[in-house]
């Protein structure tokens, strides 16, 4: 199940996510999972 989250981003970040070849949701979920597994730090 997915939950839609809306938030504000700096323009350059929003532009990055809006690129057609970037799956914004997929990227964020992947980053969260790596963070949860302690594979990366904020």
């Amino acid at each position, binding site marked *: 199940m*997915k939950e*839609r989250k809306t*938030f*504000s*981003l700096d323009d350059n970040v929003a532009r990055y996510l809006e690129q057609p070849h970037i799956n*914004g949701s997929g990227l964020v*979920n992947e980053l*969260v999972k790596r963070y949860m597994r302690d594979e*990366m730090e904020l």
Partner: protein
Amino acid sequence: MSKVTSVNLDEESVNYFKRENINISAWIREMMQRRVNGGAEIDMREFRIGELEREKQRLLDEIDAIDKELERLESEIEHEQKLQEKSESFDDLIEETAKEFITYGSARKLRSSSAFKRKAEDIDMSPFELADQVMRYRDEVLEL
């Protein structure tokens, strides 16, 4: 200046943020800012490779489904053409008789029918010969 954006988060991710009492928006803003600025620890190319591999598999599955449907439709057409050719190899009277006596389950039952015998006489054939051809028509064209 900031822009409003939305993403679909997995339930697991949302629950994690809630459990750890982390502000999701702030976390994503910070993480993405670092990603865009090239400061995050993971290689974006690795993520992109995974994404492309999944997309490639999806397209291959789609091609496979298209191939199967093409094969099915071509096979249906070929089968119908074969039946048509077989049907044309029989006299129209045989086709007509086969359909008229469709409920008679065997050559013996056909031959024992008075109506069938009359039909055979009308078209100048013996009941044996007519029943034999009707059964062949059923078998080859009607596939009964």
